């Protein structure tokens, strides 16, 4: 456990010693801020429209899908590129401790950025009379945290396959786009009776977020889905690191 924490805290600190962290935070908050502002403008003109938590949670989830590859790509691919993986693999650290440590570092960093977005529901609560519905805020953020865990997990697993961070970045982004945007139209095209449709529908990343958690409903199935994806990714990442020893 101690090793996991040592590795995670190094990764976490390292994000802040490079401009990447600040750029990611800046872009994310800028985009969310613009969406937020525009929604407030719309609300000012349309008497019936009351902006809720969805005006920043939906773009936040989408932005996370796009920026997480930039957070995770470095984690193991950079170690392989620099050759420092050899030091970690000859230090008294188990392979799974290394992988989980890397994941935790990236996850905590992402959570730090997500934590800043709390200002949006706080502001909204002040602006909307008599305050916004608290349920979707809590369930929505639970969903965002689970989504981060799963995305970083997949990112770490993919990062372990590459020794070129850019290749890892592009692959991770491709996988995320597939899971987040492409699976949804596939399920619609295949219709309710297609073979294997249940699996494809189950893997649909955005559906597990938008169907319930986003609307204020905490469904155990969705929580289990994101946690299983995280666990499976970390397991595969460990296998991949271990297989790297044999080459």
């Amino acid at each position: 456990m101690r090793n996991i924490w040592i590795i995670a805290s190094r990764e976490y600190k390292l994000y802040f010693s490079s401009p990447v962290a600040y750029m990611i935070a800046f872009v994310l908050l800028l985009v969310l801020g613009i969406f937020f502002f525009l929604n407030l403008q719309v609300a000012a003109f349309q008497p019936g429209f009351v902006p809720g938590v969805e005006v920043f949670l939906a773009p936040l989830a989408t932005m996370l899908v796009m920026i997480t590859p930039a957070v995770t790509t470095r984690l193991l691919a950079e170690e392989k590129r620099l050759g420092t993986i050899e030091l970690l693999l000859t230090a008294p650290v188990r392979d799974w401790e290394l992988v989980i440590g890397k994941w935790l570092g990236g996850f905590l960093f992402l959570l730090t950025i997500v934590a800043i977005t709390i200002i949006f529901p706080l502001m909204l609560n002040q602006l909307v009379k008599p305050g916004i519905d608290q349920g979707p805020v809590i369930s929505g953020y639970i969903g965002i945290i689970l989504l981060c865990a799963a995305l970083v997990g997949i990112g770490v697993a993919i990062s372990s396959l590459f020794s070129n961070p850019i290749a890892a970045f592009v692959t991770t982004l491709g996988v995320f786009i597939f899971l987040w945007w492409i699976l949804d139209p596939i399920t619609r095209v295949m219709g309710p009776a297609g073979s294997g449709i249940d699996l494809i529908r189950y893997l649909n990343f955005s559906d597990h977020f938008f169907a319930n958690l986003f609307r204020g409903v905490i469904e155990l199935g969705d929580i289990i889905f994101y946690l299983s994806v995280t666990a499976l990714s970390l397991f595969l990442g460990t296998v991949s690191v271990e297989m790297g020893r044999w080459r």
Partner: protein
Amino acid sequence: MIRVEGLTKDYGPHRAIDDLTFNAEEGEILGFLGPNGAGKTTTMRILCGYMPPTLGKAEVSGYDVVDQSLEVRRRVGYMPETVPLYPDMTVFDYLKYMADLRHLKNVEDRVDGVIEKMNLEKRASSFISSLSKGLRQRVGLAQAIIHDPEVLILDEPTIGLDPAQIIEVRNLIRELGREHIVLLSTHILSEAQQVCNRVIIINNGKIVAGDTPERLQARLTGARHVSVQVGGDSDGLEEVLNNIPGITHISTNVDGNIVFETVPGQEPRPEVAKTIVSAGYDLLEMRPVGISLENVFLQLTRDEPSHPESPEDEPIEDEEGVEQEGN
């Protein structure tokens, strides 16, 4: 203590090392000598628990490198050939990270101690990306000895350094060899000669010879060469020496020194000295001129008997091996 028995490692169809057996005891600096791609890096990686062997057994301090890998890794300090470091960390932070991963007590003191030992005090808060090759090498060494390991494994520790730095690193290794078992690889022969107590010559994954550098030379050349310098004119000295039993091939070299070979198993030097002095010459110097390890090495690694296993694809496989180890 290192014990290696029948160690074999295959990369796909290519056999990188083949049935290596050797030991290393306390207080020994063991040199691994061989051309590039001979299997030195592979052997070292197995010994520090980085990769498992295909066949055979290796023990470090009594722990098996496969079954008790973590115990082995706790007791081994390793510096890979490429000296991998994190460029975006400072020397101090990097060493602290490596010390933390080894769960050392009084981490900061340990780091300060090792920084002092490696003469890195002035650069402790510099980013590693700003260090020269020589300084990086020292940081790599510092990282390898920070936990005071029983066994120190150094892969080509002087490669890419300038002559002054090479001497510095060699002195350091010799110093470290007093407290640790040091296993170092090199393809520089004079380095093995200067630094190591024992040399294992490895070629195409097989041990071709192993002994002290001196004995390796003696054994392979059989005879010893001795050079004699006398004051003034050395005319007629060759004839005088001719009568002494146990010496052959007397000649005068360009400097005017007399060079002869001793017959293996005989020690004619006292007799030579007496004869020279009684013949009225002023004996200034008499010293052995060993045939360098270089010759021994070339002799051993060249003219290999043809390999029984698939000799036709051997060269290509070898090159791949080199590239893998270089990465």
